[in-house]
């Protein structure tokens, strides 16, 4: 297993995802002789995991079962230990596309935080690119290094523990793209420009507050960035449900049925998308928006470092 390559079977030392059911899962470090507790009972790594195919159903000691999934940056984002606020896949998707990342890209990132975006960036620039990620919090930088090692991607990433606003990214003129998720991104725009290739590149800054965006846009303009564009992206998830609606009793059954224009009122008519399953109700599939959704993560400001 590695976060940049699929493997077929679960091996000792792998990080795997235990999937218990709808949006319920957790990561597990596979180790000979270890057991993992789940609500369905115990999983014994040596017997239940190692050597099995990824995607297999594993029966726990209490008889319930789980699926063991191959890790991906997206599953990691959903399951990683939070050391900071993290970026989720919706923002990560647009960041990756708008920064024009692909295999071979050199990217700079600050801060590393919990490594949610870092894993996705490494995945995309592998096998020939590199991520330079800067984290000012020492413990977090350490922890990130450790995770990258465990996930088999340490050769694709350099973690530096410094203040990007003061000391920059530690590289110059080599990056295709820079990503900033720090409290004062406007203080790092100069360093970002220095890190980017002379021929140009893309930058993105993520900020929760509009005032941060305002200052960042001014700084980007000052440093000659072009195509400055701020956007916001939200995910709307629909639960697929079977809904039953009652047909109101207007007294038709007990009454004279000759009243004009009423016969078409029966929704079980041919061609109708509803299925009349029981007397007086209509059933249909509906994509129901979740009652509560994420209303804001942050503003994303993209810009281009131009040629001259």
């Amino acid at each position, binding site marked *: 297993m590695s976060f940049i390559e699929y493997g077929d079977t679960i091996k000792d030392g792998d990080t795997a995802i235990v999937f218990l059911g709808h949006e319920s899962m957790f990561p597990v470090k596979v180790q000979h002789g270890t057991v993992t507790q789940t609500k369905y009972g115990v999983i014994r790594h040596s017997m239940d995991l190692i050597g099995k195919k990824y995607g297999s159903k594993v029966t726990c000691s209490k008889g319930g079962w789980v699926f063991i999934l191959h890790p991906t940056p997206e599953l990691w984002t959903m399951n990683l230990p939070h050391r900071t606020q993290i970026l989720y896949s919706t923002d990560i998707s647009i960041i990756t596309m708008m920064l024009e990342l692909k295999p071979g890209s050199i990217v700079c990132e600050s801060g590393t935080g919990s490594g949610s975006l870092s894993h996705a960036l490494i995945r995309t620039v592998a096998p020939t690119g590199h991520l330079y990620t800067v984290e*000012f*919090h020492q413990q977090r930088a350490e922890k990130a290094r450790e995770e990258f090692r465990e996930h088999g991607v340490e050769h694709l990433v350099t973690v530096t523990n410094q203040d990007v606003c003061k000391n920059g990214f530690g590289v110059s003129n080599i990056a295709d793209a820079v990503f900033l998720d720090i*409290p004062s991104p406007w203080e790092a725009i100069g360093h970002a420009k220095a890190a980017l290739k002379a021929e140009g590149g893309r930058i993105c800054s993520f900020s*929760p*507050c*509009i*005032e941060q965006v305002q200052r960042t846009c001014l700084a980007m303009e000052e440093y000659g960035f072009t195509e400055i564009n701020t956007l916001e992206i939200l995910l*709307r*998830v629909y639960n697929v449900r079977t*809904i039953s*609606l*009652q*047909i*109101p*009793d*207007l*007294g*038709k059954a007990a*009454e*004279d049925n*000759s*009243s*004009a*224009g*009423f016969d*078409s*009122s*029966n*929704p079980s008519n041919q061609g*109708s*998308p*509803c299925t009349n399953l029981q007397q007086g109700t*209509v059933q*249909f*599939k*509906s*994509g*129901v*928006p*979740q*009652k*509560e*959704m*994420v*209303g*804001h*993560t*942050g*503003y994303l400001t993209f810009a281009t470092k131009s040629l001259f």
Partner: protein
Amino acid sequence: MAAGPGPRICEGECAVLKRGDVFKAVAVLRRRKIIFEKQWFYLDNAIGHVYGTTFEVTSGGNLQPRREVEETTTDTKEAGTDNRNIVDDGKSQKLTHDDIKALKDKGIKGQEIVQQLIENSTTFRDKTEFAQDKYIKKKKKKYEAVITIVKPSTRILSTMYYAREPGKINHLRYDTLAQMLTLGNIRAGNKMIVMETCAGLVLGAVMERMGGYGSIIQMYPGGGPVRAATSCFGFPKHFFNNLHEFPLSKVDSLLSGTFSTEMLPSEFEDNAPVEEESNGLIDEKQASIQETEEESITATAMEINQTEEQETMDINAEDVEFKDNKEKDNKENVREKQRKQWERRKKLIEAAALLREKNADGLIVASKFHPTPLLLSLLEFVAPSRPFVVYCQYKEPLLECYTKLRERGGVINLKLSETWLRNYQVLPDRSHPKLTMSGGGGYLLSGITVVLDKGKSDSSNLEALKMEEPSSKRCKVQDLQ
């Protein structure tokens, strides 16, 4: 007693308690223990104060009016620049739980407790302004027992219901209700048909907008109209003079001309309005449970736990309206019962007569039923060139309703829509949309009635259909500034 020219809180009225964004409707009664946001108190001292007054809960559950109503901002402008040096080990607060309890027992006010907590936090000064603010808000919420008593309104009640009991109002979000009232051109003097199963909230909103002018016919399923939320509005008595009700189960017979009051469903004669008695009964049991039970912590938590506390809200409100009835129940006699039955029948005949005129100024539907049959029948009672609005929690039934209405004809400007609502935090250097938002507020189908030529409906409908088919050219959006 506070000075001020506004309306005062009176015994027996319906009022709304407010703490932050959380609302709760209650009946203003003496010697009745109220539990709100984990705090218990009596409203006795509030009586006679002006609506809008903010009170602090003092020892013994007494309410004491506060002068300054603004959120007191604790002055701590020493802030760190980032939190890189903070290691949260759970040991940063020097005050123990026992210390805090002791302060509370001494009768120290919440505001002071929060200040003490800040002074005894070893990490507070190192936190960013951001984090400081968060900390203060959290602690204030926990230790400051401040409530405001406000007059009920559609704004307050619809917000309250959506937050606390969305299931009772078919998840009709308040801004969606706002759209309905505007699209329906609800105003004084209208003759409106309202069909809702939203606990009477939509009816109340329509009544508020009509201000006692005009008339309303409430169509109801089952044994009688539900008006639990309606009574929370605290409308003056005369608002109910022109409020009529008509059973859904008699709509077809009314339309076909076979309707007669002799054919009333038996429940109607016996129990209507059903809510009164049964709810009154529950209320008595409820009161005692309420006394001992701890209230859930927040409105959203309550929504999940589905506690009795929620029902109490409605029932308390109902108390107000039906208090007189209950008192009379005690000395109830046969003559009284007969008089009531006769009155009910009279009102039914009046409602039927109003509908038969087929000149209503609008139709508002917000129910748990499939909207199509409701619309196809109830539109018959509406005059031409009048708006109608249908709410449904789901989009799919409104797609079908749209199609059937097109087939029927006699309606134009059909529009299926939903609104997207987001609140903002606006603070110096910290402005951004709120981090959570409602995923959906339900869907509306609206339109305008026109004269329906029943004779040549085939060709005209076909033409109307063509006429209204949304053009494929892109919608022109006004280029504002």
